[in-house]
């Protein structure tokens, strides 16, 4: 018997974790890797804004307003003579900040509430789900605009109103996943070894509900960027003199007939960022699907 065992080739100890395989799979997805590159570049721009921006975003030059592209100001200047390129570089910080913080906040709330609803069931579940149903009745932008107006203008209130709306989607996804996962044999096995419900939730249920959340997060970041731009465009988001893509778009819109670049470039940036995050989301979804089928399909 021993020589039979010995003949078994020792498998390479490359125990790839599910997370690692996911990262590799996304890297192989063509659109997702484009999205990753774009997001990486935008993050770099946001981080290095003071080094990259040729001018201060607040420095006015009233003798040189709405100049159009020139060697000194590659994208031209705005209506009070500030360098547009510098303002858009600093605006990247606002957009990514709102996108990421707004999404993380809504995901944190949504995942917690969804776990509670799925785990407790019964009346708690019914109440939470009816609340999320109620939110579904509002068009998102209208709700967020109303919230921003009620809370007052400002970037933090944009984030807050986005999270107030966004958690419902995450809660619904997680709750559905919990209902699915908690019936699986390994959860029963965990109960049978005397694990407490809280620990089962944390160790066995939560990690297996996260796949669709990862997808939702990347798409939600894009959505949050879009919402920030929209709210800032309408004047309720960032306040002057802070620069944001939506704000620049709004100001540029006024001068669209004389200096079209002023509104086109911020618009393109918004579209680019949103598309990049959606590509990543698509790639994640494609990468996660077959793994889930492999893990849960055979029974």
């Amino acid at each position, binding site marked *: 018997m021993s020589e039979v*065992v010995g003949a*078994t080739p*020792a*498998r390479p*100890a490359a*125990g*790839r*974790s*599910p997370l690692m395989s996911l990262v590799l799979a996304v890297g192989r997805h063509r659109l997702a890797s484009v999205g990753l590159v774009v997001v990486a570049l935008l993050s770099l721009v946001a981080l290095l804004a003071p080094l990259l921006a040729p001018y201060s975003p607040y420095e006015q030059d009233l003798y040189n307003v709405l100049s159009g592209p020139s060697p000194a100001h590659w994208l031209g200047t705005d209506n009070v003579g500030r360098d547009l390129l510098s303002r858009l570089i600093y605006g990247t910080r606002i957009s990514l900040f709102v996108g990421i913080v707004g999404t993380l906040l809504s995901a944190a709330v949504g995942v917690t509430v969804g776990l509670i609803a799925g785990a407790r069931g019964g009346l708690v579940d019914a109440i939470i789900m009816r609340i999320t149903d109620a939110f579904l009745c509002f068009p998102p932008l209208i709700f967020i605009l109303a919230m921003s107006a009620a809370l007052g203008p400002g970037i933090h209130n944009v984030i807050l109103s986005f999270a107030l709306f966004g958690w419902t989607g995450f809660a619904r996804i997680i709750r559905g996943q919990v209902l699915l996962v908690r*019936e*699986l*044999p*390994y959860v*029963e*096995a*965990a*109960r*049978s*070894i*005397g*694990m*407490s419900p809280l620990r089962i939730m944390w*160790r*066995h249920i939560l*990690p*297996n509900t996260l796949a669709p959340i990862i997808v939702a997060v990347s798409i939600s970041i894009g959505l949050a960027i879009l919402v920030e731009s929209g709210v800032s465009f309408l004047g309720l988001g960032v306040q002057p003199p802070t620069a944001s893509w939506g704000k620049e778009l709004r100001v540029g819109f006024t001068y669209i007939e004389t200096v079209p670049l002023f509104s086109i470039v911020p618009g393109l940036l918004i579209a680019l960022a949103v598309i990049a995050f959606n590509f990543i989301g698509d790639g994640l979804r494609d990468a996660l699907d077959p793994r889930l089928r*492999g*893990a*849960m399909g*055979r*029974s």
Partner: protein
Amino acid sequence: MTARLQVRDLVVEYRTRDGVVRAVNGISFDLHRGEILALVGESGCGKSATALAMLRLIPDPPGRIVGGEVLFDGLDLLKADDAQIRAVRGNRIAMIFQEPMTSLNPVHTIGDQVGEPLRLHRRLTRPAAIARSIALLGTVNIPHAEARIGDYPHQFSGGMRQRAMMAMGMACVPDIIVADEPTTALDVTVQAQLLDLLKHQVDTHGTSILLITHNLGVVARYADRVNVIYAGRVVEAASADALYARPTHPYTIGLLRSVPRLDQPATETLAPIEGQPPDPLDLPAGCPFHPRCPLATAQCRREPPPLRAVGDAHHVACWVAAHG
């Protein structure tokens, strides 16, 4: 010697859309130290529900334990509080389930999962639990255990996963292992290896095993005693030897006739049991087996037969067979 585990008049019901199903209908048995007791019956006869109910693992809803006692170590497990029953689960009484492919969590390594009971009940640190898991995987014959400890379940074959589940069940050296169809999904050679492992656990640690199966071959080879279950009741309880030598209940006789035997003349045909298992929503009055029973009398259709002794530690619930 008092039994290590006493199950008394266990009743489990499931509430379904069409009504209440009584899956376990007054099952009683004892499990002694170092013995293998088999619960045998067809799918849906209540054998798995019995095992789950013992550790209060019946999902509620839809299931509910309606009555009975499960006495273990001076404690009625059905009345124990949550902390008490969790201290028993996986520690004093371990379970091995029938789905090796899905009983391990895909996102944690084998080592983390096999060592989990030790961390829960022995308060071992993670490195200590993993070191212990390597030894446990070795005892269940997983080759290169120390190299495979960081593998994820999808890197293990079905037989290896079931062995990992067994290692997990044995981790705390429990008094009782409940093995619910532990080898159903596996091929025959792997089945034998795994059951030998369980048998070894009995011989070395005096573990008691409740073996739930529909495989009469497995029962003949491994079990000391057998309870045959039909429609949520024990219909015949005997030592394995007595059951095979003198099967008494018509259902047991039918079961044994429907399995091929090597010592049977090849010309003899197998005799299936006629009819279908009863609809659990609409159990027949009297003996639940009477519609399929060749010996049924008027009394069988009226009154359910009690379990009566027909020999030394041999009990049968049958009006006809009990008369001799």
